[in-house]
């Protein structure tokens, strides 16, 4: 016979999904949030997004010595996520350093995609925050870009603004609406499991409601909703905590992980020195992910539970 046949282990057909296609889906899902960021925060936001993605992709291309800077798309996702958690107006060099740090320390010291323990974008954000705290808490109002405090730090605002995103905050985390749109798409595509965002948002809501020290039921409920919509919970719950690489793989583990993130976030918000705790909460839960996986190994088929 003229052509040599290929022999390999079964199965002989594969689903069409690849890492690249998953990453493209995530980029699509992040598009509404990025768009909202650009609409609210203008050119600054646009530049930050472009710089973040470019920096991450170029760094990865250099490390992997590849010419195609898009590659499997994971660096683009990391860069975009990083840009979305940065304040709208930051110096350009900070974004570039952030992208490089995310890809190197967040990912490639572990051996590249899939091996990292911590979410690269959040690792970079935390490092940037600790290094240049002045820039990293410089919040501005949407549209007119005047300096202002975030709702979490006490600025008052309406639920409508919180939902749409017309509030001071990080570039991509203000618009709950845009984030839910993207998160829904990912859920529909099956790339994320409801347990992580469900556990996360649910816990934040419950703790926000119950730990409100005074007031009637309506006041308590609105406090819960406020904590869900304000700050980075939505972005964190739908896109950061659900990062496949750094979250548990077991169904029970995912729920525990989501709840853990929620508890940590609320503890830091209510009792800690930082007004926002999403970054630290998710990094902490990333760290215990291997332990969660170990403890929630599924009951193997046919095994009798005693």
């Amino acid at each position, binding site marked *: 016979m003229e052509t040599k046949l290929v022999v390999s282990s079964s199965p002989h057909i594969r689903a069409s999904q690849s890492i690249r296609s998953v990453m493209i889906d995530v980029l699509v899902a992040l598009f509404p949030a990025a768009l909202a960021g650009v609409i609210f925060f203008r050119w600054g936001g646009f530049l930050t997004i472009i710089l973040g993605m470019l920096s991450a992709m170029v760094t990865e291309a250099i490390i992997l010595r590849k010419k195609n800077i898009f590659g499997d798309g994971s660096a683009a996702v990391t860069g975009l996520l990083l840009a979305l958690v940065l304040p709208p107006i930051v110096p350009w060099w900070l974004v570039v350093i952030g992208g490089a740090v995310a890809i190197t320390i967040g990912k490639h010291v572990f051996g590249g995609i899939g091996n990292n323990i911590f979410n690269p974008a959040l690792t970079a954000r935390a490092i940037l925050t*600790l*290094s240049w705290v002045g820039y990293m808490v410089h919040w501005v109002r949407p549209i007119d870009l005047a300096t202002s405090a975030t709702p979490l730090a006490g600025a008052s605002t309406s639920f409508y603004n919180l939902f749409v995103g017309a509030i001071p905050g990080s570039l991509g985390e203000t618009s709950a609406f845009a984030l839910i749109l993207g998160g829904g798409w990912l859920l529909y595509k099956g790339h994320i499991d409801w347990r992580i965002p469900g556990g996360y948002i649910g816990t934040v809501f419950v703790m926000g409601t119950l730990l409100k020290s005074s007031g009637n039921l309506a006041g308590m409920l609105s406090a819960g909703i406020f904590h869900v919509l304000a700050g980075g919970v939505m972005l964190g719950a739908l896109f950061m905590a659900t990062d496949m690489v750094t979250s548990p793989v077991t169904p029970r583990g995912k729920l525990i992980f989501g709840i853990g993130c929620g508890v940590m976030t609320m503890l830091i918000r209510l009792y800690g020195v930082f007004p926002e705790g999403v970054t630290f909460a998710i990094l902490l839960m990333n760290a215990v992910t291997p332990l969660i996986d170990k403890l929630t190994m599924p009951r193997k088929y046919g095994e009798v539970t005693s």
Partner: protein
Amino acid sequence: MSLMNDFSKGLVKENPVFRLVLGMCPTLAVTGLAINGLGMGLSTTAVLLSSNLVISVLRKAIPEKIRIPCFIIIIATFVTIVDMLLKAYQPALHSQLGIFVPLIVVNCIILGRAEAFASKYPVVNSMVDGLGMGLGFTLSLTLLGAVRELLGNGTIFSANIMGAGYQPFRIFSFPPGAFIALGLMMAGMNILAKKFKLE
């Protein structure tokens, strides 16, 4: 030749920090500034040198069975002396180093060298070994301190290097930065070691 070897191995080939991974606690804790690293390194060197000297002198007199407790007492004595000296003559440095001065006593390098070297070799070799190891330790700490100070503060030994416009990479002044900087430097050392076939 042998003496030279005893001396130099501590500097590079068996560098206590980068090759043997010993004495990590003070290495990480006090290297926020190059000067602190230097101070810590020299204090440790002093203790190492004196304890190696005394142990080598007494190596035939100390009973085999209780040698470890004896070593610990000898080391602890010198640590206490160094502690007092620092407090008297370098109070600023002493307060910067804080609890890590008395903790020199549990630095694995010192006990390790006492047991592995000083208790078996003559006085001169032991002292040279102690000096080499100590200086290797000092060098590593100062280097790490300089890197962290430069990145985290823009200065080395308080001399401004990076210019006024530098926005310091603050994290390297904080505890997490200590871990990350040392981790990255260690990887760098691995690359160098491979290149120069030190394995």
